[in-house]
């Protein structure tokens, strides 16, 4: 699985030395079940299930904060996307579009909706 | 080319590639005996004349091996080697000799495996290119 992620994200996950700087700056970390550096860690030690089942990859906002600060040059934003895609390509959606309330649909800007669908649905 | 065993002259610098070949020996790695090493102090001692001489005297391939750029025992000799080999390859091509017959490799003293792989690949490549046989063809051109 790590190889698949490496291929899709074009990032060398073996370079990560678990400093945690990515997680420290992550805006979403509080709502994540495992921290971004742990996502990599689980892949490094061969526990892909932890990663596939986690909430983290979905809550990641693709803000690139981790990417610009990683001392080992790992673009974690792309790593998150790669794992999301592995799930989405199995047709496992994170959100059910039908369940989004009318309220939300009319209030949020289009870009939020389009982006949401792009990131969270297959 | 069935049964063709290419002849290779390998110029190795004393500090890195010769030592790598030594290490290949000490580690009992196995290589085909298609090559003979000639030791120079630095790859930059290898004069293009020697390379042509080798081809003329029946070599099918010539390997020039030295320390990695930046690691030259003599500071920067290998940068000169790089330039000379690159230019000579162009000239060889114009002289109708496949430039792949001249190979430049950076092989550090510890890279015994690289030495082995380099020779192996070179032998394979030369087998595909076939014999050069310059001596035979020396007076070719069907003069007379």
């Amino acid at each position, binding site marked *: 699985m790590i190889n698949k992620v490496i291929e899709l994200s074009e990032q060398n996950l073996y370079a990560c030395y678990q400093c945690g700087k990515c997680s420290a700056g992550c805006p979403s970390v509080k709502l994540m079940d495992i921290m971004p550096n742990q996502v990599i860690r689980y892949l490094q030690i061969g526990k892909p299930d932890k990663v596939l089942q986690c909430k983290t990859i979905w809550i990641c906002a693709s803000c690139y904060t981790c990417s610009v600060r990683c001392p080992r040059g790992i673009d974690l934003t792309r790593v998150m996307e790669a794992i999301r895609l592995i799930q989405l390509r199995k047709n496992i959606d994170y959100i059910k579009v039908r369940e989004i309330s009318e309220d939300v649909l009319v209030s949020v800007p289009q870009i939020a909706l389009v982006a949401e669908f792009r990131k969270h649905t297959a | 080319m069935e049964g063709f065993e290419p002849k290779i002259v390998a110029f190795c610098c004393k500090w890195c590639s010769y030592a790598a070949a030594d290490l290949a020996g000490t580690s009992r790695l196995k290589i085909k005996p298609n090559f003979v090493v000639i030791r120079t102090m630095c790859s930059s001692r290898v004069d*293009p004349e020697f390379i042509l001489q080798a081809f003329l005297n029946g070599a099918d391939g010539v390997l020039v091996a030295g320390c990695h750029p930046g690691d030259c025992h003599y500071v920067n000799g290998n940068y000169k080697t790089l330039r000379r080999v690159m230019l000579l390859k162009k000239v060889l091509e114009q002289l109708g000799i496949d430039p792949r017959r001249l190979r430049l490799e950076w092989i550090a003293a510890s890279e015994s495996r690289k030495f082995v792989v380099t020779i192996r690949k070179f032998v394979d490549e030369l087998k595909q290119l076939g014999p050069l046989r310059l001596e035979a063809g020396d007076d070719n051109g069907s003069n*007379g």
Partner: protein
Amino acid sequence: MGKPKFAFYWCASCGGCEETVLDLNEKILEVVDKVDIVFWPVALDFKRKDIEVMKEGEIDVAFINGAIRTSEQEEMAKLLREKAKLVVAFGACAQLGGIPGLANFWVRSDIFDRIYKKVPTVANPEGVVPQQVVEMDGYKLTLPEFYDTVKTLDQTIPVDYYLPGCPPPPDLIMNAIETILKGELPEKGTVLAPDKALCDTCPRNETKPEKLSIKDIKRPHEVIIDPEKCFLAQGIICLGPVTRSGCGERCINANMPCRGCMGPTSEVRDQGAKAVSFIASILGVEDEEKLSEEEVQKLIDKIVDPAGTFYRFSLPASLLRRRRK
């Protein structure tokens, strides 16, 4: 003892070498005074049979210019060798192959194709190319064989001395003749010219920077050439360092770089290979650690026709002698 007998002969060359003998001006008269010219087809009416009837060693010195390109030239060279005590390879073509030697980058059929079929000004719809033997109206016409490979004179017959240059400079010729007349002959095989490279006598040599490094290669027509400064320091390829001096810096004085007609010095086995070595050695060597391989390649690629440049006069005399098919 009578006057020594001299012979002159012309093989594959442009004829400039013969001209240069005339360029000796009034000195030629001195020479003519002291020697008997027994054979000089270009100037005097002699025929092959005049030589054939001579005894072995009857001629004292045969000056042969030009490379060996055809069977007739080979035969003549052999004939003269037989009849002459000394053979002097006269000029770059005889010594090294010279400009005609550049033909060794091709094969005969390519050359015929080009000359007789592809040159735009040639109208030859039937595609006729010279044949060695042609039968016409019952007559059999023969031409000498046109060899595939150009050879130097010493690849055909043993040569005693060499007079280098394209053409050999008059003072070297006079020197050589005087030496021969005086009988103070150097060791056989000697090139009758100084054994130092051209930089030694080149007035521009002192303008060289301490460390030569060519950052960008320029061809003479691409730049305004500083008439005082060493060509290499201007990024122009000059073969002076790999070429024997003695020419009088003819090209340099005409503000053109040396192309190497005097051939290499005696310790060099292959002028072109040495040229490769020294030119490559100074290509972008300033800050060399910073140049990537691609950048070096780019710089090298700016040398148009490297083999032709470095072997302009010496391909047949080089280690590899010709292009391989």
